[in-house]
């Protein structure tokens, strides 16, 4: 159940990704239309974060390629914004909320140039959008998990991109904040931006996403929500790991080299 589109904003072509030599995503092939709120669903260890990291070029794929806005990634990086998982950084780092959000402006500034008034205004605006204006000068370790998550989203907003990739932005966020952020994301997609979110709650996924990608080591489904959200697809996604695939993976791991590498 994979829907391909004309003039995709993101095209993933036959992408296989491995950690060390252990394949964690097999031959993903999909394309996404612009202006959608896209959810990536799947059980733990299904390769959801891996897919996002491979799109951002943070992991080199074993085979296949990714094209964004019909161009190779490095030519369009400034138009793509990435929200990593909250746990990926040390929140004890000496920085204020504003310091972190300002990092969103670094990409456009480039090397050597320092952020100024314009960048600060942009950061303040982004903080306002996520409802964190009251925390500008707060030390980041003093924030709750949900507030830290919102700081990361504000940093992504400050990047003023056209495509947003968010890795579990709702982990540790309470219900009302989750809904508020979903509404914000919907406003962004209504304005023509594309937002891709790794998510784990099927219930809210039903309510908010336009398009769903379902993963379980391989691509189970990619298409408009109403087409792919059915019992059959959910069973294929969440119905446990494919036994045979796991055994092949074990076999590959025992080799000293990666046999999938072309």
């Amino acid at each position, binding site marked *: 159940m994979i829907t391909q589109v004309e003039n995709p904003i993101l095209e993933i072509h036959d992408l296989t990704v491995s950690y060390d030599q252990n394949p964690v995503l097999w031959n993903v092939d999909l394309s996404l239309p612009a202006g959608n709120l896209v959810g990536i669903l799947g059980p733990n260890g299904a390769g959801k974060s891996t897919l996002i990291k491979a799109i951002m070029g*943070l992991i080199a794929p074993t085979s296949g390629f990714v094209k964004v806005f019909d161009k190779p990634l490095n030519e369009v*990086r400034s138009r793509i914004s990435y929200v990593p998982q909250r746990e990926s950084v040390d929140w004890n780092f*000496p920085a204020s909320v504003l*310091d972190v959000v300002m990092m969103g402006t670094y990409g456009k*500034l480039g090397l050597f140039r320092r952020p100024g008034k314009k960048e600060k205004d942009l950061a303040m605006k982004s903080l306002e959008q996520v409802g964190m204006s009251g925390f500008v000068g707060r030390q980041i370790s003093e924030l709750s998990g949900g507030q830290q998550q919102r700081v990361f989203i504000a940093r992504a907003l400050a990047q003023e991109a056209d495509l947003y990739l968010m890795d579990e932005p709702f982990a540790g966020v309470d219900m009302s904040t989750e809904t508020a952020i979903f509404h914000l994301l919907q406003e962004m997609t209504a304005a023509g931006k594309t937002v891709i979110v790794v998510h784990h709650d099927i219930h809210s996924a039903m309510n908010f996403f336009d398009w769903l990608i379902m993963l379980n080591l391989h691509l189970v489904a990619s298409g408009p929500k109403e087409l792919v959200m059915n019992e059959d697809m959910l069973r294929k996604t969440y119905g446990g790991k494919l036994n045979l695939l796991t055994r092949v993976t074990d076999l590959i791991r025992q080799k000293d080299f990666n046999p999938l590498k072309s």
Partner: protein
Amino acid sequence: MEDFVYFFTFQDPSIAWVVLGITLLGVGSAYVGTFSFLDKKALLGDAISHAVLPGICLGFMVAGEKNPVYIVSGAFLSGAVATFMSSWLKRNTKLSEDTIIATILSVFFGFGIVLLTALQKSGNPEIAGLNSFIFGNAIGISEADLMLYGGLSLVIILVLTILLKEFRLMVFDPEYGKAIGFPMKSISFLFNVLMILAVVIGIQAIGVVLMAALLITPGAAARFWTDRLNPLLILAALFSVLSGILGTYVSFVLPQMPTGPWVVVFLSLFALISFLISPKSGIIFRYFARRKYLRKTHRDHLMKALYKAKENGKSGLTIAEIYQLYPYQKAATNHSISGLSKNNFIATNQSLISLTESGISEGMRIVRLHRLWELYLNESMNIAPDHVHDSAEKLEHLITPELEALLEKRLNYPALDPHQETIPRENHDLR
């Protein structure tokens, strides 16, 4: 005293030069070191500083004399070999980082000592100065050497200042840096180069063995005082420069004294003071904060006891009864009683202690919070009534007025707690 004035008025131009050199060196090494401390790479600095020794000896051997350019280049090269060997080993073996660093440190330093001993046996008259590279001697540095070390320090300070935002990103969130297209690999390569340079500039003034302390301790000490990067860097530099100058002064007054150990003594002093007295994270402050809180809980419990006595129809409690409530805590109890009298919450009439008007309100508030929390645990969290008391005993001191209002609303202004006792409010009939 004469020495002190002579040194700190900088009449002697050679002293002024040394102090200027030490200042630059202190700022540069504290600057780099703070970043490596924040990046949790403190041990790498230690490994590099030990690993430059063979390079110093080889530089001496090639030049045949104590030529600073040869020695600095040798030190830099062997530091670089050690750094890149450790990252190569980390990538290509399954050894853990601490194993790799410990191995590199001891192998290089051991090799360096072998070379140094061989040089000492060679009978070259120039060799005498080489010993100062182990523990450092700031006073013995010539002006030409100072120009070299000071110049390198300036390079470090400049590069770090220009690339402040890039290094901030490297430490806080390198993956994000990569995602926005910054060359994170080159940035951390550059940082490693700066790190080696920071060790190299200190080899003569501080010595290879203790240079690691000058890298890491200033940042670690400054971290107690601030939660922002810029003040952290400035404070670390200040600690480092002060210790550097004081250490140099000691070597000046006592010419046999090596500079490095004394710099470390002063640095440790700054670190110890920070650890003890810094607000928020210093242990003395934390001790007093905790004691203050414990005293408040004791006072709260006493207020509750008096309020409950009133609920049971007694006008107050005698001092003897109160002592009995808190066995072995006579001193703390007396302290609470005098504190509460001062706040005008209680009044003593002969030996009977009873609540005043404002004391009734305060006692009622604490009892109310206790019982509200018990009810919340019982109703919303399904905890049995006989298991809720201990938690309420601790949380009654913490619940803020906002939380109280929220509890009241959530529980819909209840009349009774899980033990069927009245939840008292201001219009209660006890008044």
